[in-house]
């Protein structure tokens, strides 16, 4: 009988950038059993939302994840808008979808790089991350930030897309599409890539269904499920696109699904830009949200994101619950690793694209160029500015809101 050895992988591990721990029991080189421990990144955000005004929750929830920040803020805001019974202007739903797709592109390109790195294919990492800069620059141009775009406001979006920006988006999409076609060739023709990833991290259709795999992880096992089609939100009902599935059921399949989804995203963006309606950007939503409950779903780059919001008639939610797609996929990972090679652990875990805490970079305001007086605001000034802005533009008075003692 072969001796069994338990090797702890994580919580800190050179291959995985986020804390998650896997106790891997080995029988020879093969994984016999696996014990997953997550929760190292629990920051009490759900609790933090209680006792904070809805407006503050938007900013807080946007910081659940650096990569899919737009997903969480949109998902939450959709629930709040349903509770407040407001319909956002058409243009706002188009712009939300536009940012959603740009976010998907940057997330999938990021994943491609990480996956390539895990299998020692660093040329592909350099290529895909270089190309990812195209979409990151585009996001910075459109929203002012590479991550945490804060495009959503309750009742719509805060920012329009100008004619000039439309041209820049289309130009960037053309570049990215050409590059992605090359990645499709790499994924389907490059022998070392195919050989390395095929039959690694296998999970059958039945198991993926039973364990609740979502997003590209589920779709690579043939589960034809996508919230954008199943339960359309934003502008997706008016957009024509396909759900990409694959029947390889392994890491290779997950790579193919993601690369092909990129091509779908480019087509979606072109349609959104072409059809972008001319309506106002947002509607006013009262500060107090009527009592009720709402569930909102969103197809984040990694899979289905879901938010439950319970309101009580005040300006603060009673309960906010969120489930990010990684949580739904983490049990599927344990199954994928079973009987696999120990050396495959990093790539199999990376293949579900677990949410890394990624803060790309900080943009420091150009204080040197502008005089201090013009450019700097104290916290108090900033608060006053925002209160006046909301009073003037939205007809909502936030001046009564004070930091509650209950805040943690």
């Amino acid at each position, binding site marked *: 009988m072969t001796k069994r050895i338990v090797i702890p992988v994580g919580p800190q591990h050179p291959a995985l950038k986020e804390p998650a721990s896997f106790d891997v029991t080995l029988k020879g080189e093969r994984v016999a059993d696996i*014990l997953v*421990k*997550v*929760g190292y990144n*629990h920051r*009490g955000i*759900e*609790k933090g939302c209680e006792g904070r005004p809805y407006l503050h929750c938007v900013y807080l929830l946007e910081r659940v994840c650096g990569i899919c920040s737009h997903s969480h803020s949109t998902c939450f805001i959709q629930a709040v808008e*349903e509770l407040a019974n407001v319909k956002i202007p058409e243009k706002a739903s188009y712009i939300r979808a536009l940012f959603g797709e740009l976010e998907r592109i940057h997330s999938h390109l990021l994943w491609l790089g990480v996956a390539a790195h895990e299998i020692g294919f660093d040329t592909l990492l350099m290529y895909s991350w270089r190309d990812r800069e195209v979409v990151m620059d585009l996001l910075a141009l459109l929203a002012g930030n590479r991550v945490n775009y804060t495009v959503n406001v309750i009742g719509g979006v805060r920012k329009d897309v100008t004619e000039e920006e439309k041209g820049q988006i289309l130009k960037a999409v053309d570049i990215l599409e050409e590059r992605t076609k090359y990645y499709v060739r790499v994924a389907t023709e490059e022998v070392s890539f195919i050989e390395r990833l095929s039959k690694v991290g296998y999970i059958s259709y039945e198991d993926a269904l*039973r*364990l*609740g795999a979502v997003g590209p992880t589920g779709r690579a096992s043939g589960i034809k499920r996508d*919230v954008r*089609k*199943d*339960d359309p939100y934003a502008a997706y009902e008016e957009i024509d696109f396909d759900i990409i599935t694959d029947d390889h059921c392994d890491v290779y399949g997950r790579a193919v699904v993601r690369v092909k989804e990129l091509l779908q995203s480019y087509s979606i963006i072109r349609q959104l830009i072409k059809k972008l309606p001319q309506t106002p950007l947002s509607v006013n939503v009262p500060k107090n949200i009527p009592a009720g*409950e*709402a*569930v909102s*779903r969103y197809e984040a780059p990694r899979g*289905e994101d*879901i938010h*439950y919001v*319970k309101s009580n008639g005040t300006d603060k939610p*009673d*309960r906010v*619950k969120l*489930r990010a797609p990684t*949580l*739904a996929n*983490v*049990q*599927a990972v344990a199954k994928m690793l079973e009987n696999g090679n120990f050396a495959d652990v990093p790539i199999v875990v990376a293949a579900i694209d677990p949410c890394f805490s990624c803060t790309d970079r900080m943009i420091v305001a150009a204080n040197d160029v502008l005089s201090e007086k013009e450019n700097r605001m104290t916290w108090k000034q900033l608060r006053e500015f925002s209160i006046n802005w909301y009073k003037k533009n939205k007809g909502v008075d936030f001046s009564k809101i004070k930091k509650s003692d*209950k805040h*943690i």
Partner: protein
Amino acid sequence: MHATDIALQIKNKYSSSVVGINVQRERRLWLELVAGDFRKCFERLIKEDGFEILVTITGLDTGEKYEVIYHMSDKEGRVLNIKISIDRDNPAVSTITDLFPAAELSERELMDLLGIKVEGLPEGRRYPLPDNWPQGQYPLRKDWDPSVLDKKIEKSGDKND
């Protein structure tokens, strides 16, 4: 079939166990069940009515009682939110991990954050709170006072040293 028809069908089928059913919109149904009949109805709702996908489980404290909501979905993207109410003294639900293994983390969340006992859930590592989190402190309970925590964590930290 429209959501209203589905609601009517569920209401007739499980009439004695239904506390209330409400159609919020085409893809959002809210069903409240008698806690004692939950398990029995839940299995049938999965097998017979097509709500076979577990999306997530939410636990909440309304002040008077606890509520657990099982968010289920069918293939058409309809979400059926099944709610049960639980007494504040000795709160407990039965596990659904035999039907959905993926429910484990959500059920551990109920235990950790609300102190709801999940009967039938095998022993395992806690989630999502840290291992040195003090006993009997459930942050999502409305009467929970976070200031207690600073002292307790310090204390338990001392012990570990």
